[in-house]
């Protein structure tokens, strides 16, 4: 019974993720795409739970759904007429774009089913403590570089989004 319920929830997250990602790509209105992206990110967080990545699932919800998606929705509100369909919100070059996309999809599916994956027995245990240790030992240099990158992005985004003071003189 529990097993069946787990399978149902797993498939529910898979369908939620892929289905709302298709809405993101094929819907003509940007604001609907943004809200569909919410469900895609939520579905990926659910899949992280099935992969025994509890810390990542929580970070995905907090950072992506709480931060990045809020930024994107603000961006939509500030730049697009929300319910008014303009030419810029439709999709273009669909058939030209399909050629490389179908090619890449075929390669990925071929590799997925023919490669000899070296499977191990997956371990399910809390990851937060060992992930913290990993960030301060193996990944110490990328961790420090990422902090500098975040500082640079913070200052750059502030500088870019402020109105320029010298524009009034011209």
């Amino acid at each position, binding site marked *: 019974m529990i097993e069946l319920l787990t399978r149902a929830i797993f498939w529910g997250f*898979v369908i939620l993720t*892929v289905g709302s*990602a*298709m809405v*993101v*790509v094929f819907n003509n209105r*940007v604001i609907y*795409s943004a809200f569909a*992206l919410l469900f*895609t*990110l939520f579905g*990926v967080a659910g899949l992280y739970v099935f*992969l*025994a*990545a509890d810390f*990542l699932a929580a*970070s*995905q919800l907090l*950072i*992506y759904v709480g*931060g*990045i998606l809020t*930024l*994107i929705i*603000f*961006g939509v509100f*500030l*730049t697009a007429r929300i319910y008014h369909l303009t*030419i*810029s*919100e*439709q*999709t*273009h*070059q*669909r058939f030209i*774009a399909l050629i*490389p996309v179908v090619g890449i999809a075929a390669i*990925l*599916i071929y590799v*997925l089913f023919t490669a000899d*994956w*070296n*499977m191990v*027995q*997956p371990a399910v245990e809390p990851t937060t403590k*060992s*992930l913290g240790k*990993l*960030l301060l030992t*193996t*990944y110490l240099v990328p961790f420090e570089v*990422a902090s500098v990158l*975040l500082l640079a*992005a913070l200052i*750059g*985004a*502030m500088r*870019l*989004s402020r109105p320029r003071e010298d524009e009034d003189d011209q």
Partner: protein
Amino acid sequence: MISDFHILLGVGAALFILGLLCVMTRKNAISVLMGVELILNSAALNFVTFSHYTAGNLLGQGTAVFIIILAAAEAAVALAIFLNIYRILSTAEVDKADQLRG
């Protein structure tokens, strides 16, 4: 034999090709950014899947943490640039912004 491993990699592949399609077919800059977010998510999902099923350690999850950090920084800077483009050109179409000097 299709296992959870194959299903999760398939979801990653589907997210990647959908994001690629979004980047290639959209003109609105924010839609392009959403496509990039889909691609980053697919990469992170693949890293976590491989680390869980084929490596048995947490290195892939560490990489996924860095992917989330990069996505946050990228979204903030990209939206600041888009707002500037919108203020100057009154449009958020990526192919209208073809001048370096604003």
